[in-house]
């Protein structure tokens, strides 16, 4: 399923005035791959996406799309890419069909093929019955779908989606994720988001960007492993003796939380979950909640950046 390299980004930097927004970013995307771009707001995700799609010229570095250099042969490179910016670029006063026909024409779809292209894109994005409605009157979720339809109408090998689920309600988010999963059959997808679970549910590979620099490139399995933390949250009907819990092999410390829950830190090498449950049953503590504490994006950032600064101090130290 994974084939040739479609997008190749080589040591790309972008400065606004003197301020670097993106620093020496390199990565590549293969055919049929879904790459998640993860980072907090202002990390340089959108800038990177804009450079990939030719909306911004990089200050340094080289981008090739489907073998075409974005600066030397922009027409061919742009024809191979579909882009959904953070805010869908829709004309509110147009009907969905009119808008998509225009997008098809702009992207060089031959006149005869336009109706078929429009209907195919509408079918994929679930827009079948809103063709004649004005885009301005559609809900945010539908406008987002129109935006996606616009990006795939010329069947580009690569689709770039900038925060496709921002500002949608949970139902709409689920629908858009379904849609993205359906699109991965035919297109390579680059997706940016600041929501961790989104990357986990849709992507093959993830890159974390912070302050303009790539700080992690990993597969989803690798990321999940990194996220396994060594914290359990427990809640009991009857308050146990914390020293008894702390005595279990592998438990490093036990701390009470605000709402009567207990937080148990343990050594990842020896998972004490089973022992904790056994103890709870033996002592009849009424265990009603046991949850592994999921590392959030912030935790990963802290971990990664803390690791980095630790490495820096080590190298500086004599």
């Amino acid at each position, binding site marked *: 399923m994974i084939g040739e390299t479609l997008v190749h980004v080589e040591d790309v930097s*972008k400065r*606004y*005035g003197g301020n670097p927004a993106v620093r020496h970013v390199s990565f590549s995307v293969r055919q049929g791959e879904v790459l998640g771009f993860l980072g907090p707001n202002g990390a340089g995700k959108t800038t990177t996406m*804009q450079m990939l*799609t*030719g*909306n*911004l*010229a990089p200050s340094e570095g080289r981008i090739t799309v489907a073998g075409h250099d974005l600066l030397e042969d*922009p*027409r*061919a490179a*742009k*024809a191979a*890419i579909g*882009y959904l*910016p*953070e*805010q869908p*670029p*829709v*004309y*509110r*006063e*147009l009907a969905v069909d009119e808008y998509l026909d*225009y*997008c098809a*024409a*702009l*992207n*060089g779809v031959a006149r005869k093929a336009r109706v078929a292209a429009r209907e195919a894109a509408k079918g994929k994005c679930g827009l079948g019955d809103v063709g004649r409605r004005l885009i301005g009157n559609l809900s945010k979720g539908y406008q987002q779908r129109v935006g996606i339809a*616009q990006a795939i109408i010329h069947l580009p090998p690569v689709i770039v989606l900038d925060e496709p689920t921002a500002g949608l309600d949970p139902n709409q988010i689920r629908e858009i994720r379904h849609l993205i999963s359906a699109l991965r059959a035919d297109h390579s997808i680059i997706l940016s988001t600041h929501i961790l679970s989104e990357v986990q549910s849709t992507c093959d590979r993830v890159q974390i960007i912070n302050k303009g620099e790539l700080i992690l490139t990993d597969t989803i399995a690798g990321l999940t492993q990194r996220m396994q933390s060594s914290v359990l949250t427990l809640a009991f009907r009857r308050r146990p003796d914390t020293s008894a819990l702390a005595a279990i092999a592998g438990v490093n410390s036990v701390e009470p939380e605000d709402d009567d829950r207990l937080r148990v830190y343990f050594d990842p090498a020896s998972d004490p979950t089973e022992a904790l449950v056994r103890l709870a049953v033996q002592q009849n503590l009424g265990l009603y909640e046991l949850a592994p504490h999921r590392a959030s994006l912030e935790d990963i950032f802290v971990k990664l950046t803390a690791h980095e600064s630790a490495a820096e101090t080590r190298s500086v130290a004599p």
Partner: protein
Amino acid sequence: MIFTIAHQELRRMFLSPLAWVILGVVQLILAFMFLSHLEYYQMIQSKLLAMQAEHGVTEVVVMPLLGNAGIVLLLVTPLISMRLITEERRNKTLALLLSAPVSMTEIVLGKYLGLLAFLGIIVLLILLMPLSLLAGGGLDWGLLASGTLGIVLLLAGFAATGLFMSTLTQHQTVAAVSTFGVLLLFWIFDWAGQGASGGVLAYLSLLNHYEPFLKGVFNTRDAVFHAVFIATFLVFSVRRLDMDRLGA
């Protein structure tokens, strides 16, 4: 591709009430002026006949009408041109054009031709008035053609200026006011009335390069002036949008 963008631009103009209102108001005002000129012509017609003067209806009625149309459209063009790029920037729809396989020049020319088509419709509607005179007499076709060419070149210059101003800002009113300011300045550069023989300012005056057309004089110098005026602002527009992309 240029025509795709131009066609879309024109269509979207007519989806807003502004375009219709402008067509209506311009036509109403110019019709009133046309009728006034016509009335004046009827008053002096007998005198002209008596003097055996060579002034015909085209010269006395139609050319002043085109002269006034130039001033009215100097006021009105900024109102149409102001939204060309500003609106796309504001609504973040510019990304659609920028990420499509279309060059910046094509985008600018497409937008420009769309606006030009709208102004063309206005010119056609204006020309219908003199043509209605055919019901009661003849027209001086040469003079009419020269005047028409003059106003088309003039409006093409207005449109290029408006397009450039709309690439500079995110605010439509700012674009409209600055377009109006620049156009008016170019209009009054030769306020002293030195004519074509004056200095640099007189040469830059749009009015000085419009009036000869209304007198039936086609001078390449005037046509070249308009062409350079238009090209300059179009090149500026392309450069300005490219600078956006460079993010400097």
